[in-house]
């Protein structure tokens, strides 16, 4: 079979699912919506795995390089020759990898939701939205055209908006949905401007051509975009920074991260899919997709590096103080994505210098497994306890043993304890940082200690701490909820052993990444220290955590309040923008714009009345105007305007 025969079905099947469930699900087969959704995703995931097998092992690797294949391309809107908006499918190692992640995690979430969302009023709608999201995300990762990515970028934003606000009768969910939408939309403004600059300078919207032109140092496009400058910075840097701004918004990087913790208002499986494993890594994917261009522009890579590392540290500190378990996980997501971002930032194109690229993608891959596992585990806990707050939990390890074990595996993985998946990928990230930028390495190492600390704080608070008997509220975890946990836990145990450099590297060639035993000692020690500290403080009920908080004083309060980032935004928008920009604009709008418009409306009404006079209903007058019209036009054209 050729790729073209089946590959389009991978994204199109979820779209069909969305249409089917969205239009007819509620009315005709509400109970079966979940099963239908799962089945569709199963087929889609099977096709994605098949594609990955064919691509990585049969025909993707030629002449020592993984090829970039475009099996399907449909020219959608042609502007002029060479510049068109296409809808296509681009196969290269990262898009195939993302396809596998998206369909796989989505399938797990679909299955998990069978139990989690059971009895929900809008059960079919939920599955329809999940399918819409899966379609959009798949369209995003396979995009062959930068405008196609933008198109699907907005679609995932909309699906995310719909799913965050799924419980639309809760005001907090509605405002969280709005916040997520507005913040990412604001970032996308930068993305759009970046796209327009790149397309204008590169003369194309097609990824392969664009990358080819902008990395060829002799090409006229490259010379034009690097020599032109705006405010003393080259247009190339502007464009890439603006594109990265879009990526940072979607990936919740500092300072655009404020929407992600609030987005936890959505159903927990949604958080696992969208706000942990797939959509939020879109920013990482975007930088990776344009990596050859980024890699020859040192300034923009530096921005990428520092945004990533600051986010990693900053979010980890906040995560240590939060008490809502989903918010802890949300901040840990920001922190881990920070790892992926700075790993890209420290990488260069090709060979050994590209190790950071491989490491970033590897971490993205393993993170998808253990983070969705953590979220689904948290979902199972919330399902039992009916609360998100740590204080309502504790001693759950006997009540839900499967969740307990799988959650522990995921915690060990994210903390970077061998031999779990997170250990290997974090190892490569740290190694890449060590070889390139020692300061970033220091931050990353410290952050990995913090990661271990806050994850085990979470783990002990949920499953140990007190020996309190919980009522199960008559809920038991069904098989549909346990199965994804077990599968993902197995994945978390195994995927770390994949020799990732063999498949994914910055230039498509095989990258050998030998395991450095001596190098891994420091990170593991940091992780173990974090775990021990957490054990000492949180395993049993004791006053230690309060004492620690009191000792840290103001710093703790600041971290607990998320370093007042929300307040800063509020100050900037409400006090500065509304007063300094909004009020004058309102004044202009009211008196000048409205005044003009009222004037126009007044004169329009006058003219209309005058025209009404012409429209007298008398045919002889019509003939007269007709004739006068001819004479006037003839005079104008013959004498006045030749």
């Amino acid at each position: 079979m050729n790729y073209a025969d089946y590959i389009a079905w991978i994204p199109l099947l979820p779209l069909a699912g969305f249409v089917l469930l969205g239009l007819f699900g509620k009315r005709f087969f509400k109970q079966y919506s979940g099963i239908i959704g799962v089945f569709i995703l199963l087929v889609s995931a099977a096709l994605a795995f098949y594609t990955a097998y064919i691509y990585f092992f049969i025909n993707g690797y030629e002449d020592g390089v993984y090829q970039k294949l475009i099996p399907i391309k449909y020219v959608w809107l042609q502007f002029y020759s060479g510049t068109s908006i296409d809808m296509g499918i681009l196969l290269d190692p990262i898009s195939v990898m993302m396809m596998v992640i998206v369909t796989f995690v989505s399938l797990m979430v679909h299955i998990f939701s069978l139990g989690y969302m059971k009895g929900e009023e809008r059960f079919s709608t939920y599955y329809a939205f999940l399918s819409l999201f899966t379609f959009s995300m798949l369209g995003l990762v396979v995009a062959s055209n930068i405008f196609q990515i933008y198109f699907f970028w907005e679609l995932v934003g909309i699906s995310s908006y719909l799913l965050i606000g799924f419980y639309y009768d809760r005001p907090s969910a509605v405002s969280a949905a709005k916040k997520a939408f507005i913040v990412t939309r604001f970032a996308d403004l930068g993305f759009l401007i970046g796209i327009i600059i790149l397309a204008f300078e590169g003369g194309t919207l097609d990824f392969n051509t664009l990358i080819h032109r902008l990395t060829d140092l002799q090409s006229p496009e490259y010379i034009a975009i690097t020599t032109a400058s705006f405010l003393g910075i080259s247009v190339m840097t502007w464009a890439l920074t603006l594109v990265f701004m879009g990526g940072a918004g979607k990936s919740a990087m500092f300072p655009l991260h404020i929407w992600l913790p609030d987005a936890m208002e959505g159903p927990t499986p949604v958080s696992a899919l969208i706000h942990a494993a797939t959509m939020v890594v879109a920013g990482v994917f975007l930088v990776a997709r344009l990596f050859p261009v980024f890699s020859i522009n040192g300034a923009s890579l530096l921005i990428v590096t520092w945004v990533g590392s600051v986010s990693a540290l900053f979010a980890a500190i906040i995560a240590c103080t939060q008490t809502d378990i989903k918010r802890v996980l949300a901040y840990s997501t920001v922190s881990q994505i920070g790892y992926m971002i700075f790993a890209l930032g420290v990488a260069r194109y090709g060979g050994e210098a590209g190790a950071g690229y491989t490491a970033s993608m590897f971490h993205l891959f393993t993170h998808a497994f253990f983070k969705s596992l953590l979220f689904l585990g948290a979902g199972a806990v919330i399902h039992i306890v009916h609360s998100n707050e740590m204080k309502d939990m504790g001693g759950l390890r006997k009540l839900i043993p499967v969740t307990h074990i799988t959650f522990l595996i995921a915690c060990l993985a994210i903390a970077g304890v061998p031999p779990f998946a997170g250990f290997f990928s974090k190892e490569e990230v740290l190694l890449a940082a060590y070889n390139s930028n020692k300061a970033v390495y220091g931050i990353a190492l410290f952050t990995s200690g913090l990661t271990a600390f806050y994850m085990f704080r979470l783990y002990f608070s949920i499953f140990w701490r007190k020996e309190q008997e919980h009522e199960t509220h008559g809920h038991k975890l069904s098989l549909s909820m346990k199965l994804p946990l077990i599968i993902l836990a197995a994945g978390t145990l195994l995927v770390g052993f994949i020799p990732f450099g063999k498949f994914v590297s910055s230039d498509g060639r095989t990258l050998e990444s030998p395991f450095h035993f001596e190098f891994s000692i420091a990170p593991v020690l940091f992780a173990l220290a974090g775990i021990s500290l957490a054990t000492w403080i949180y395993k049993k009920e004791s006053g230690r955590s309060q004492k620690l908080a009191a000792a840290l004083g103001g710093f703790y309060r600041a971290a607990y309040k998320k370093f007042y980032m929300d307040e800063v935004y509020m100050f900037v928008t409400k006090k500065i923008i509304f007063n300094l920009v909004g009020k004058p604009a309102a004044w202009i709008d009211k008196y000048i714009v409205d005044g003009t418009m009222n004037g126009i409306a007044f004169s329009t009404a006058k003219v209309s009345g005058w025209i009404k006079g012409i429209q007298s209903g008398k045919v002889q007058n019509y003939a007269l105007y007709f004739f006068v019209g001819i004479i006037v036009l003839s005079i104008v054209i013959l004498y006045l305007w030749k």
Partner: protein
Amino acid sequence: MWSDYLHLMKMEMTLIVILFILLFLKLGKKEWDAGKLLHFINILLVINLIFGFFYNTEGSLFGNMFRTNHLLALEKNILNLGTLIVSLQSFHWLKDHKHIPEFYMLLLSTLLGMFFMISSNNLLMFYLGLELSTIPLAALANFDLEKKISSEAAMKFILSSAFSSGLLLFGISMIYGTTGTLNYHELSQQLTGSPLQILSFVMFAAGFGFKFSAIPFHLWTADVYEGSPVAVASYLSVISKGAILFVFVSVLYQVFENMTTVWYNLLFLLSVFTMTIGNLFALRQQNMKRFLAFSSIAQVGFILIGITGQSSEGSAAVIYFILIYVFSNLGAFGVVSLVSAATGRETVNDYKGFYKNNKTLTWVLAISLFSLAGIPPTAGFFGKFFLLLAGAGTTHTTGGHANYILITIAVLNLIISLYYYLRIIRAMFMDNNNNPIEKVKATLSPNISFVICIVGIIVTGFASGAYDFIYSLVK
């Protein structure tokens, strides 16, 4: 030889066959059930439409008076499609009418006239087609036989069109006087742009302007649209206008290619007037029927901008836009006529809270209005986009730069039109009404027409193939 006639005039022949079938139905003794008869006629029209897509060739007949090719066949097919939609939508109104076969005989005669006009290769042939497509329309405008206002509309229409035909003929005869030929190809070589020819061209163009109601030749429109039955008004504002615009483009581009500056200037003035005044007209209409009719005047102004492009892009954009316009305007007209037939309510205020009882119809009307207003992703957006693109791209007349003045005026007018289209959408969805229009039941025929319109609006917008196909034919 005979097969030649049958083959090249296939589309006209089909219509004539249908006309004869209708004639025999009328002459026969049997009393037909109105509903069945209408379904039968609609099936004939569907066959006519489908048949229109096959066996099209190129060639000419009658000593080069008549010609046909794939592009002209496509234009005729668009008109066939529009006629079918109008016919489906007039089901409710015609069901209680005593003279169904006559209605269709008159309607199809005008369509036949349009076909001859489109296929004309000689001014005489063009004139014959024009008259054949005009005179039966006057009878159609009078088809609400018991209403006085309908007779008034017919009377005004026939008098005005007689007047405009007179001036048109005057123009044609002066063209003949200065060149000595009526054949398009010979004319294009003989015309030099002398003052007399310019004068005759203005008269000639005014005759066209009368038909597609360019301002200041539009005055008949208001009375005729108001007085005639909704089906006829929609036919006049969509099919009849579409046909004459097809001819206008090909005549301008082929015959008057030596006088481009003259007709560019003329079209510039006409389109500015037509857009602006048409919009001002539409702005204050409270009656939905009149509102749609007047907004269609403004739409013609945009089409004229596309024509000023003087390029195959311009020609393709015009045909593409008319195709979309058929779907959008007929979709809107269909809903309005259905509601007006069922409840007799047709002002904008009546449509407040329309969504409450008529969800599907509201969406049909809303999508059609979105398309007319040119809001993406409906087809209307792409249609207007290509028109403006074609209009902006005139480099050889404006001396190397795009025509920003015309485009700016067009965009300002687009904004005004947005206001009045959205006003209706707001009324339907958001405004409260204590006495909203009750549930209107649509039968099969109008429903089919709505499906065609909505699918058309969405598909022609998303499938870039439609425009590319037209463009390939124009080239």
